[in-house]
């Protein structure tokens, strides 16, 4: 039942997201066709574009048309290159996913061990250092960390390529940029949720039974502590996706974030609209998925409802 309710509200949100992205183009000050094509465009071109975008119809009808086209998988076409937008998304989106996925792995593989370490050393100076550093690290914006990493590892040390996607090593710096912030948040979360369960009775029982300490931590404590971590990862996927916009721009990584920025620079609003929509929908989907996963994984949540 609860999951059903969640799915209903999910569709309401999707509808809202569609409406908001649809309305975006109507917020362009003045005539959007004028703004997109520039002053030098011919009258025929303008009429054509207005026709293509359906801007001469009533607003409700336009929205209906927009939804109808989307349901057919038709995202329209780029104003300048006339490429179908779906093609652009198809080529750019996998690059973003690849980047986000690697950042996630980096975040997890730094965050979880550090969090465990801090929890085991709770109250000692090691814990204090890890906590302070991770709190401060999570406040670092990508547009700061990116250039700094680029300066150190690409310009000064010359270990990695500055930008682009030519070599396999190109992904390292952007992924680190995104992964660092995530790892800081995961460290704190792992520490907190592990500390919560470490004092539980069943952990004491496990220890009393003579189970080795690593086994107690990994098989008993961490398993229970994993749920909040899953939620955080789900929620953080959103900032990861948004973070790709800036990170991809810094490192010239041809993902959907960079496509978004390029389309804004060229005033190719249909592309802008679609990019925003795709990123927002991915985020909503990830959230829904996390939520369901969480409910399925934790029996307590089910009983509570």
């Amino acid at each position, binding site marked *: 039942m609860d999951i059903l309710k969640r799915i209903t509200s999910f569709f*309401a949100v999707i509808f809202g997201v569609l409406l*908001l992205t649809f309305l975006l183009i109507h917020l362009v000050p003045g005539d959007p066709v004028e703004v997109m094509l520039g002053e030098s465009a011919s009258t025929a071109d303008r009429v054509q574009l207005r026709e293509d975008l359906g801007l001469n119809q009533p607003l409700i009808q336009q929205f209906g048309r927009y939804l109808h086209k989307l349901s057919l998988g038709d995202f329209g076409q780029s104003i300048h290159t006339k490429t179908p937008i779906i093609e652009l998304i198809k080529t750019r989106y996998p690059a973003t996913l690849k980047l986000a996925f690697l950042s996630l792995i980096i975040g997890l593989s730094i965050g979880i061990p550090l969090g465990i370490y801090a929890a085991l050393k709770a109250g000692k100076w090691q814990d204090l250092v890890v906590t302070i550093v991770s709190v401060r690290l999570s406040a670092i914006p990508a547009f700061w960390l990116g*250039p700094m990493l680029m300066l150190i590892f690409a310009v000064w040390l010359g270990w990695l390529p500055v930008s682009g996607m030519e070599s396999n090593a190109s992904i390292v710096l952007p992924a680190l940029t995104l992964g660092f912030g995530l790892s800081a948040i995961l460290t704190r979360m792992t520490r907190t949720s592990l500390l919560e369960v470490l004092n539980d009775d069943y952990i004491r029982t496990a220890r009393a039974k003579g189970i080795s300490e690593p086994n107690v931590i990994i098989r008993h404590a961490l398993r229970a502590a994993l749920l909040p971590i899953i939620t955080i990862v789900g929620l953080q996927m959103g900032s990861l996706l948004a973070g790709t916009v800036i990170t991809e721009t810094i490192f010239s990584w041809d993902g959907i974030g960079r496509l978004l920025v390029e389309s804004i620079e060229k005033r190719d609003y249909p592309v802008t609209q679609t990019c925003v929509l795709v990123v*927002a929908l991915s985020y909503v989907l990830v959230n829904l998925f996390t939520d369901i996963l969480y409910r399925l994984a934790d029996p307590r949540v089910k009983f509570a409802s």
Partner: protein
Amino acid sequence: MIKKLSLLILGFWVIAVLAGRFLQLSPNDIDLNAILSLPNSTYLLGSDDLGRSILARLLRGVEVSFLVAITVTLVTMTIGVFVGLIAGFFGGKVDRFLMQITDVFLAFPGILLAIAFAAVLGPGLVNLMIALCITGWVSYARLTRGQTLSLRNRQHVQAAESLGASVPRLIIKHILPLLASILVVEATYSLASVMIAEASLSFLGLGIQSPNASWGAMLRDAVRYMLVAPHYVLIVGLSLMSLILAINLGGDTLRDKLDVRTEK
């Protein structure tokens, strides 16, 4: 000690801005004989790609940054608190409707919606602030709503209600004062996040436009010239980081002082 340091850094920037005003620096003066020069006696922190003083531009930039952060925080807080109070106080359908709207806004991760709005509105200081205001009120609305929901059932509110106090009076006299400290703490954090958002948008070329100075735009230029003038990106980067950390630390200190428990 860390807390003092954060106050020191904040104080340093405020004094630097005031001093910059007093000294009448010229952040837009172009000197083509000193393009991307290293720090020297004329340009204390070096000069940028058009030979403009990095120091002067940093000071002007932080001024703009403060201006944007304070304005946007005040506007978003007012809107958000208003919406949150209505949703939390009246509950029911009104609440559900308003929260559904906030859900839609929250469906756009991080800065994405601000990017979208800034993109269609076009670049510039005012449009940048509008974009940040449209997207920034949601967190205040959620926070206020949650608090109001629980405060609504407090005895002192119900007592006032049964004595015949009007709705505005109930809200303004009996609920709002109890929200103040939590909102102040939230506002401090939002100052830092608005600053970051402004810098991000300017970094993407969607915010403040040349020749006006902005840290985000400076960082973007600095990245472009990283190979020839690494000191530029280093100076802008370190300045930005010091300020953001100082404000965040200030927020933590304030939270501890006011003893507000937030989930954040």
